[in-house]
């Protein structure tokens, strides 16, 4: 069993929590997912090559646990996005985050890895265990879906020339 779990939590807790919140759209589920990730970490016996390997492993485990929870939530729907608005002072950011959370789970994970975590396409593919072309496709579709939603909602101005 690993003794450094607290240190890991203070280093990566917020990163895991953000990922889980975006994936699940629910604070308490996200907290459970982070907690389960830490427990998996404690029980993980293999050594990590370096810190980047450890971080990618934690993210992958967290995303997989979120996917499991999403499967459960499909049978027991409970969307509680409203409770998350407490994080946002600027309404546009709140809307953007909400639109991201409304995307299908596969698009959400890719956009999260690329735009929020700052991983490149190759790294995103490695962490999510999908091909690079799948990352690119999902990213493109996710962006398009996000643009459609922004245009439909008409809440904010968006520069699509990027």
């Amino acid at each position: 069993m690993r003794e450094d779990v607290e240190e890991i939590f203070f280093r990566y807790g917020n990163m895991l929590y953000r990922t889980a919140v975006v994936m699940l759209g629910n604070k308490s589920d996200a907290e459970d997912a982070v907690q389960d990730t830490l427990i998996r970490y404690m029980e993980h016996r293999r050594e990590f090559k370096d810190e980047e390997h450890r971080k990618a492993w934690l993210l992958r485990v967290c995303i997989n646990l979120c996917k499991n929870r999403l499967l459960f939530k499909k049978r027991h729907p409970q969307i509680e996005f409203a409770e998350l608005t407490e994080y946002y002072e600027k309404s546009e950011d709140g809307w953007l985050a909400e639109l991201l959370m409304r995307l299908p789970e596969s698009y959400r994970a890719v956009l999260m890895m690329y735009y929020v975590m700052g991983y490149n396409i190759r790294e995103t593919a490695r962490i999510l265990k999908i091909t690079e072309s799948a990352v690119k496709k999902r990213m493109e579709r996710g962006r398009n879906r996000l643009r459609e939603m922004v245009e439909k909602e008409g809440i904010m101005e968006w520069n699509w020339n990027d």
Partner: protein
Amino acid sequence: MELERLKDAVGLITLSEEAKERILNLNGRRMQIRRQRGRIYKGVTAACVAVVLLACMMFLPAADSPEWSVNAYAQGTDGAEWIRLKPGERVLLQKEEGKEYYRLKIDIPGRYWYEKDIIILGQDHIWVDGDEIYWLTDALFYTDVEEQTGYKLPEVMSDYLYIKILDEDNQITDLIRLEVSKEYGKCYVQLKD
């Protein structure tokens, strides 16, 4: 780049102190997970035990099956063939090519004796000869009995042939009960349970 705003939007999501405290209380959650896993393991174990028991139930009768057998030349799935009779299974007898009678073969390794060795079933004659049983139809009357006597034979008839298996002390260890029946001109045999 507008999509960079996603980073800012999501970056605002942070753990509260209460949430941190709750998450770091790992022991309670670990116990819960262990209990869940325990339930899964118990379920899997119970399922495995059930499968093993089922397999045993399926194979035990084969292990307990008697050494003796009664075989009849009868209608099988691929036509007429020698069939080992199973208890409760009723088979339609067939005549071997060039033979005028139906035939059954008894295969009993030890000693045995027939309680009766001849059965008259309407006009049919069933008799025992060593480890073989013969069934000759229309054996008793070469002319039609109904025309001769005016007696109408029933369309459905049956009787039993008993074979008693003995041990070294001449004690009966097993009893074979073989039902022979004739229905609308067709001859059947069934090993009774």
